[in-house]
């Protein structure tokens, strides 16, 4: 019985091969055997770059999830106010790692390119699953890096809202990465164990594998050196390719959200401005800019840590948010919603009890010794330690205690 089964199996394998052979006429262009001859199409290089990408994408995924949790916190999540620069580091890392992943991804795709034209295209169910999973992996990886680079460059040629589209693409890409690791872990281990030298299999005169990795690393180095200065101040002088440069902007720092015509007009008629403190309070407040200036002023050095990856420390001066909440008769461990007078996507932000109780969380009236520029939120903006820049609401009109 066993013998018969084997015979049948062998015969069917032979006939399958014969049947497939008829399709070999379709092997043209890149599908032809030996269409790709460069020794740089190497499993070893693919494994090395794959591991590097696995690490960089994991860093981007974790820091990205964190940034989303901070901005739309579920009930179980409380983002602390200290250390002051934690978000500056995690988000700086998110953007810098994304930039550094571009050379890695392009190199990896080139190395693996012959596999796109594998013949026969599918060999069995698992192989089919493996190959289909490459669509979300490659599509997602390119999508994440491309939309990320364009987003921080303020260019939106697409129809979706960037943070949401980028966020869900990240889940899809990471899922596809898990499948890919499952498919390649064993092969990668073999490929890396097989030979110690990167220089073997060199073509006459052509680039060695080490040279290839050198060129890719060089590109990573140049991109990092010329962008990381947007958050890492020792490199600030080299930030030629950064879409924002600390030190450049009104009052010496960049602007992301800009005031509309209404906001500018209201800022000019400052006599009519009132800050409202309302919600779960026993004494609702209505304060003019003069009233605010007459309250106890607090000063602190705090960074603006932009979601776009730049950051800059500035000296802020204003009224502690907790002081206002207590003045209105609410406890200082309340949750607070801060609302801008300018409607828009980012017109409200939440301040959790831990943030509110931090002495440096304030409604700033001045920066570096000058009243705020309208681009920076005149008359009043929220600023606090360890908060994403986008949650430091500008042109504050209302503080409501939840």
């Amino acid at each position, binding site marked *: 019985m066993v013998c018969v089964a084997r015979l049948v199996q062998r015969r069917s394998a032979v006939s399958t091969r014969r049947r497939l052979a008829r399709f070999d006429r379709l092997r043209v262009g890149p599908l032809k055997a030996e269409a790709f001859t460069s020794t740089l199409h*190497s499993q070893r290089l693919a494994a090395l770059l794959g591991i590097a990408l696995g690490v960089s994408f994991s860093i981007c995924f974790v820091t990205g999830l964190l940034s989303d949790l901070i901005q739309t916190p579920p009930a179980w999540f409380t983002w602390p106010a200290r250390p002051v620069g934690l978000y500056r580091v995690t988000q700086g890392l998110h953007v810098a790692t994304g930039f550094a992943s571009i050379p890695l991804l392009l190199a990896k795709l080139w190395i693996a390119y012959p596999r796109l034209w594998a013949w026969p295209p599918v060999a069995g169910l698992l192989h089919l699953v493996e190959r289909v999973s490459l669509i979300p992996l490659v599509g997602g990886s390119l999508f994440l890096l491309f939309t990320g680079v364009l987003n921080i460059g303020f260019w939106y040629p*697409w*129809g979706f*809202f960037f943070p949401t589209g980028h966020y869900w693409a990240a889940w899809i890409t990471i899922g596809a990465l898990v499948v890919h690791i499952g498919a390649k872990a064993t092969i990668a281990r073999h490929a890396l164990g097989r030979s110690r030298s990167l220089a073997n299999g060199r073509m006459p005169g052509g680039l060695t594998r080490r040279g290839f990795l050198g060129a890719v690393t060089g590109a990573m180095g140049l*991109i990092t050196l010329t962008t990381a200065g947007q958050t890492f101040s020792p490199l600030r002088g080299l930030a030629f390719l950064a879409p924002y440069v600390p030190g450049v902007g009104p009052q010496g720092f960049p602007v992301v959200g800009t005031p509309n015509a209404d906001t500018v007009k209201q800022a000019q008629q400052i006599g009519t401005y009132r800050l409202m403190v309302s919600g779960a309070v026993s004494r609702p407040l209505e304060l003019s800019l003069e009233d605010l200036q007459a309250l106890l002023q607090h000063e602190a050095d705090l960074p603006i840590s932009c979601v776009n990856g730049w950051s800059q420390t500035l000296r802020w001066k204003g009224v502690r948010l907790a002081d206002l909440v207590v003045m209105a008769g609410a406890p200082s461990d309340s949750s607070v919603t801060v609302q801008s007078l300018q409607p828009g996507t980012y017109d409200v932000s939440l301040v959790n009890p831990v943030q509110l109780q931090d002495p440096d969380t304030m409604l700033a009236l001045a920066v570096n010794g000058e009243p705020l520029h309208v681009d920076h939120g005149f008359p009043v903006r929220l600023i606090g330690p360890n908060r994403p820049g986008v949650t430091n609401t500008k042109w504050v009109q209302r503080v409501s205690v939840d």
Partner: protein
Amino acid sequence: MGAEGVGGLTPLPPEEDRLSNAADKGPANRRLFSIMAVIGWLVMSYGVYGLIINAAQTHPSSWLVWFLGGIVVHDFLIAPVVIGVGVLVSRAVPDHYRGPVQGALIAGGIVALTALPYVLGFGRSSSNLSALPNNYATALGTLLLLVAAVAAALVALRRNRRRAR
């Protein structure tokens, strides 16, 4: 950007490390793959679910165009162009100097592609002069010159070494 398909000029690499377009049997460790595939597809399903329930923000049809568009542009435009350039370089550049030239094209090409959105500057706006404040074309040009200078130095070094021999 290595040398591609120049009939018979390049020897085949060690068979075992070769990443070719030859048939492969799929995942080496079927058990590991099956487990990871289930986990991965669950995670992907969560992503697709999120994409759909947030359709008001994600605009799935536009999202899909950009998601798949990347594959089309890369696999059928960028990669063939890169390979074409690789073939030209392998034919036009003498063996001894080909390495530095290829390296410079790889590094320069990647940096140029990364900087391109800022060089084009579509994100500039008159209401915010602090966004994209640099001259990105000049910056990119300088970086490309730097890459070319390194490649030229390597070529000169090789030439000297050959002469010394």
